[in-house]
């Protein structure tokens, strides 16, 4: 308690070393300057691109689930809406720059998210989660059923158009990486601005105590719907990155319930209601299967085929989630905070 008694409500946190923006800026500098020089194509294609897309989806879901407290199992559906909307807008609107398609995709996902967020006005927790499943199944069904969405391709498969920004092609792995990184950085920054604003406080107020929130004048219904819309907007754009920058060819089945759970796990493991948690969680979810497969084949040799890998992945991931929920409900973000504090005190002593 004495540690807090020293400062009188500072505008910026008391200087415990570096200012708050230092770490994100340093990370961005490394991501923009060092990574493109050092990373291999494999690293871009297998790790960094899915990591960026899933991180962004995690940031989006975290706004809804972590901050506003509305559980959703429909994230993959909103990713699909984003991906297919971007594809169609790009296809059907002549001369619209890529950025226009992306924004349109986000808005489409926001509209669908808003519609499937309506049950949240009446339902809570479990029941709401089940009702968001409807989005999951409905979107996947609609994209497969109506071939218009995929420009009449077989079984709803779409191919990403060549990516161009201001006349420059960004089709190589490095180009797509920088493109995805920029989108993620901008949206993450805006999300950060949102969650520290009055609206962000309203989200948390609705999550922590809906009655109290209503009584102090938080427009509860509007706040919930806004959370659904903003979250779906971001997840929709994550879907665009997934389809355009990472896989390049996607089908509706790729945005199934497994993907929704994956994003939910990212948020839980990373830490609810922290933006950087989504990045920790996504890193773990992306890197972990690769490490497991390397490790498995090293230790077990031929026995460790893809079937075993898939199964052991699920088992270890499940165990990990239980472990996190029991031991560190605040996720990797809290873990990293504690680590940083310990290092800081260690340095001060040393």
């Amino acid at each position, binding site marked *: 308690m004495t540690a807090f008694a020293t400062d009188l409500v500072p505008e910026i*946190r008391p200087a415990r070393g570096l200012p708050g923006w230092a770490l994100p800026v340093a990370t961005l500098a490394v991501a923009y300057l060092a990574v493109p020089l050092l990373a291999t194509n494999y690293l871009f294609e297998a790790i960094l691109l899915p990591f960026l897309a899933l991180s962004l989806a995690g940031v989006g879901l975290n706004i809804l689930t972590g901050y506003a407290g509305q559980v959703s199992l429909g994230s993959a559906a909103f990713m699909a809406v984003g991906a297919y909307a971007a594809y169609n807008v790009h296809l059907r609107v002549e001369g619209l720059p890529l950025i226009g398609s992306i924004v349109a995709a986000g808005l489409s996902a926001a509209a669908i998210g808003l519609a499937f967020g309506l049950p949240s006005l009446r339902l809570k927790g479990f029941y709401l989660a089940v009702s968001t499943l409807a989005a999951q199944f409905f979107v996947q069904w609609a994209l497969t059923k109506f071939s218009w969405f995929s420009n009449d391709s077989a079984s709803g498969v779409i191919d990403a158009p060549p990516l161009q920004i201001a006349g420059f092609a960004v089709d190589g792995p490095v180009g797509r990486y920088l493109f995805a990184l920029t989108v993620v950085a901008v949206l993450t920054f805006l999300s950060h601005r949102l969650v520290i*604003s009055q609206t962000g406080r309203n989200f948390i*107020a609705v999550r922590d105590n809906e009655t109290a929130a209503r009584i102090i004048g938080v427009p509860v219904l509007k706040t919930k719907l806004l959370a659904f819309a903003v979250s779906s907007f971001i997840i929709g754009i994550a879907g665009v990155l997934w389809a355009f920058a990472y896989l390049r060819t996607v089908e509706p089945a790729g945005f199934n319930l497994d993907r929704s759970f994956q994003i939910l796990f990212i948020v839980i493991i990373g830490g609810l209601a922290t933006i950087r948690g989504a990045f920790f969680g996504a890193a773990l979810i992306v890197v972990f299967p690769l490490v497991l497969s390397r490790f498995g084949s090293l230790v077990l040799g031929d026995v460790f085929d893809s079937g075993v890998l898939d199964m052991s992945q699920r088992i270890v991931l499940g165990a990990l989630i239980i472990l996190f929920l029991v031991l560190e409900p605040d996720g990797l973000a809290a873990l990293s905070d504690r680590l940083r504090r310990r290092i800081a005190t260690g340095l001060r002593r040393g």
Partner: protein
Amino acid sequence: MTEVLTRVLEGVTNGAAREGAAAAESVQKVVRARPGLAPDADADAQLHPAAKPPAAVEVVAGDGPAGQGVGNEAAQAIVLELAGVSLSFGGVAALSEVDLSVRRGEILAIIGPNGAGKSSILNIVSGVYRADRGHVRLKGQRYAQVPTQALADLGIARTFQNLALFPGLSVLDNVVAGRAHRARSSFVEQIAGFGRARRERLDARARAIDVIDFLQLSALAERPAGTLPYGLQKRVELARALVAEPEILLLDEPMAGMTASEKAEMAGFVTAARDRFGTTVVLIEHDIGVVMSLSDRVAVLDHGRNIALGTPAEVQRDPRVIDAYLGVAVEDDEDVARGEGL
């Protein structure tokens, strides 16, 4: 037996004279026996002219201790009225035909045994419940159910019997959240962070810091509210209510579960808040000692009925109160004398 009680309660009133004072005495002169009995039309006629000069009253209340203002004409304005309010839960009557009017700038305590309907009154005033019969009159409007969403804009803030903070937010952010009803900027403006959104943010923050200072919570401003001890969380809740600058403050057992010194501190804050902001306070409290010293008037509820209303001195002399509320059983009398009277 009643003599014992009266003596005990008189001891308490001496405490009142010590702490709270002149206000209580000036109120004694102007007690109206059963205000709610006036027919509706009359009540309207009384209310509207009275509701007019609140600005002037606020100046009076803001200038000095509002207690001084209670005696004068304008301060008689009734800011909140319950008329014939009944409420039942599945056949069990929580409130029956309750009339209650609250005057500008006073501290009105509602007391009564468990289940007497005290919290129900606050829940009806704050729109959490809807009255089966009767209505609430606020700012010249009659409500069967007060619109909770507009409560803050109607000038009412409340605290809850069980804490209703946002544990995930810091103390400062909890208090800033109390300004939520004033936010007009859209979320896009807030993300951009200039113009109206910036003004609102700075204003809310400055006011929150001010109230936090006032309630001596500054050292804890950055702490997550959920990590504070109970008594401090209660105080943060008071801060969140006060930052909205309510005309009427509803406090549901603000001192429940506190130690004696915490209670005294809290009582001091409630009085100070009234004096500084000119807020009308309606509070529910079990501790008779606190009630008698803190409040200008006391309403006594028993089995959902308002059985007495008056100054602390009057109420504790009222035989109905002694019978129904205090004079329950011999063993309990001793409890009152030991635990709450002193």
